[in-house]
């Protein structure tokens, strides 16, 4: 096992990792920017090293400074958390070359899975279902017509270099294909400087359901059930739950998705914790979207329903231990929900609301978990994301988890900054949520705060 681990991150995930290290008797090194001198992770780690000024590119993305911090403190491994350098193959490779264990997959896996086209191709070959479409960029309009007719309308025209929902067009019929393709190309060129587009089958009202996997260094892979992350606002997850409340979700589908996820991990020689994201249509047909090669924000809900500490598992796997859990040991019990609590103003288009937390009360009780790095008097910096924390509730049933969440949100007091607590409360009281009947587009179609707005 490692003696000392450096955590190349900040906020609640850095704190989460430090706690797991404490339990395992591992010394911890925090790194922090000048803006984070008083941040919790820098305060509670055994050692803390300043790695640069506030902007992320000079500190939490500064590979050289982080490697230097590792060298100075003699840490033997780096946990990258999520975001920042966690999915940067150059950083993973650099750690490998310097003899530092990168707690995550190997650089080549990150690289391969980071290239969307290559990842999709690999999955297709391995028999993992992918969304059918053009193999790579398409420019010939005749070929586009033929392909679109084969796939069946509606189809999506997407920018090869795209992301964040930009450069995407829905085409409903043959006669609008050419115009939409031209428009998509122009938008792609303007946004990404590359006018390559591809075509794929449009999945109507899909759900985002992802499978958590753990893979050790010896080829053993297990899956730990799914997380339903369909509650998204502009591609940002707002609330997640495990298991999925979707009417089509069955034990049989879960097993098929889990096995597909394990296959996906195996074909790329994957190691450590990872998540395979699937788009699922209303009939329960699932398609590989991408693989996240790191721990995820919403990992606590999987921990709640499986009883497995994912961060501890990451440390054990990276230290070279074999998975002690077999697939048949993984039992899903109860239901967990996570609400992301952010310092933002939902009435002002969710604009971030940095500032000093004047008063704070964090709810607690049986089945309530709050992962956070804030405390009373803490100043939320404008330099980083606006997350205050994650509120997770766990109950024997979904109803129980929702009941706990309703009360816990009501008790959550944050003064000094605006938060989305009331928004979350309204959201979980919506009939669509209570019925478990929502898809990725729900929050984009529905104005949760309509009544609030009309009041003013």
């Amino acid at each position, binding site marked *: 096992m*490692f*003696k*000392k681990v450096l955590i190349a991150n900040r906020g609640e995930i850095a704190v989460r990792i430090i706690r797991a290290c404490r339990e395992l008797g591992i010394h911890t090194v925090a790194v922090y920017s000048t803006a984070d001198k*008083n941040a919790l992770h820098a305060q509670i780690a*055994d050692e803390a090293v300043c790695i640069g000024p506030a902007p992320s590119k000079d500190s939490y993305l500064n590979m050289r400074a982080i490697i230097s911090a590792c060298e100075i403190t003699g*840490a033997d491994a780096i946990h990258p958390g999520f975001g920042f350098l966690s999915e940067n193959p*150059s950083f993973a490779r650099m750690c490998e070359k310097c*003899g530092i264990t990168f707690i995550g997959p190997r650089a080549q896996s990150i690289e391969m899975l980071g290239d969307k086209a290559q990842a999709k191709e690999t999955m297709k070959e391995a028999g993992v279902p992918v969304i059918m479409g053009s193999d790579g960029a398409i420019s010939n309009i005749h070929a586009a017509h033929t392909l679109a007719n084969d796939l069946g309308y509606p189809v999506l025209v997407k920018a090869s270099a795209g992301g964040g929902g930009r450069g995407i067009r829905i085409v409903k019929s043959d006669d609008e294909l050419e115009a939409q393709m031209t428009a998509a190309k122009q938008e792609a060129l303007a946004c990404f400087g590359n006018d390559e587009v591809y075509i794929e089958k449009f999945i109507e009202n899909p759900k985002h359901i992802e499978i958590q996997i753990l893979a050790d260094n010896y080829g053993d892979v297990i899956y730990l059930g799914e997380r339903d992350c369909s509650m998204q606002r502009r591609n940002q997850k707002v609330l997640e739950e495990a298991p999925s409340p979707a009417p089509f979700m069955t034990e049989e589908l879960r097993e098929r998705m889990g096995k597909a996820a394990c296959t996906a991990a195996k074909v790329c020689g994957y190691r450590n914790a990872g998540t395979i994201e699937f788009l699922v249509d209303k009939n329960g047909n699932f398609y590989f979207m991408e693989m996240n090669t790191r721990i995820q924000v919403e990992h606590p809900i999987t921990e709640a329903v499986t009883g497995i500490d994912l961060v501890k598992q990451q440390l054990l796997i990276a230290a070279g231990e074999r998975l002690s859990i077999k697939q048949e040991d993984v039992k899903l019990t109860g239901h967990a929900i996570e609400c992301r609590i952010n310092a933002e103003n939902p009435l002002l288009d969710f604009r971030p609301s940095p500032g000093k937390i004047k008063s704070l009360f964090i709810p607690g009780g049986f089945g309530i978990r709050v992962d956070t790095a804030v405390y009373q008097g803490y100043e939320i910096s404008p330099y980083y994301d606006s997350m205050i924390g994650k509120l997770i509730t766990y109950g024997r049933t979904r109803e129980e988890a929702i009941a706990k969440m309703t009360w816990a949100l009501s008790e959550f007091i944050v003064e000094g900054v605006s938060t989305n607590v009331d928004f979350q409360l309204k959201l979980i009281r919506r009939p669509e949520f209570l019925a478990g009947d929502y898809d990725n587009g729900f929050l984009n179609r529905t104005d949760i705060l309509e009544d609030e707005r009309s009041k003013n």
Partner: protein
Amino acid sequence: MLEDLFSVVKERFNGEKPLDEKTEKTEKTKKTDIPKGLLFKCPRCRNVTFEEDFQKNGKVCPHCNYHSRLTARERLDITVDKGSFEEFDKDMISKNPIDFPGYEEKQQALREKTGLKDAVLTGTALIRGEKIVIIVMDSNFMMASMGSVVGEKITRAIEYATANRLPVIAFTASGGARMQEGIVSLMQMAKTSGAVARHNEAGLLYIAVMTDPTTGGVTASFASLGDIIIAEPKVLIGFAGRRVIEGTIRQKLPDDFQSAEFMLENGFVDMIVERKKMRRVIAHLLKLHKQPEEVTGNE
């Protein structure tokens, strides 16, 4: 107050055997081993870049745009049409005219290390189909100092260009005259300058590209005689070194003294061209200065 808020946490956790902060911090569990060649430290701005990224960027510092030194072969690879370089005087090597101790051994060692016979490669090549005579100096061989071989190869290359009515492109880099050859090396300044003059009288184009570092007798001869003088960004261009000048004139020199940008401002350089645009710019200049076929053909 905030700084102390959580100090109690560690104290409590560490309990009765408080961790000695000092032993804790010096106790390295494992030596981090940063391998050689992983990082490039820029000699200008002192920032560090991954060697891999630095190489991908054409050996240009991504922080300050310093155009670091290339070997003559690397320079040819990014400048001329693939496979078009035909070398002159491949095996010309130097004698030891003033019996300088250790000179032969030093040259021999460098020949093995660099694969070069001396500090310059000359020959003909094509740039986007245009035939030229090209001269490329390599600072890895005795800092590309100019001795009899360097001077002779350059002179012969320019004379070939004059005889065959070809433009000359010279990538200069040099620490100056080669002191191991004494007065013989100083004579190369006049010899190369004479060759450039005759090339010029024939109405032919000569482009000098100053790369890091272009100094001493090379600056004071053929490098500064280009019809067009180009420099790469941030490179060092000068005659005597900064400390020598400061000592002589007893004045502090400006910080950017002897930089390509300073030389441009003061009229010693015509333009500064980034490495990634160099081939395009030279090709364009060659096209603009091309002599009409009928004039040269029917004489």
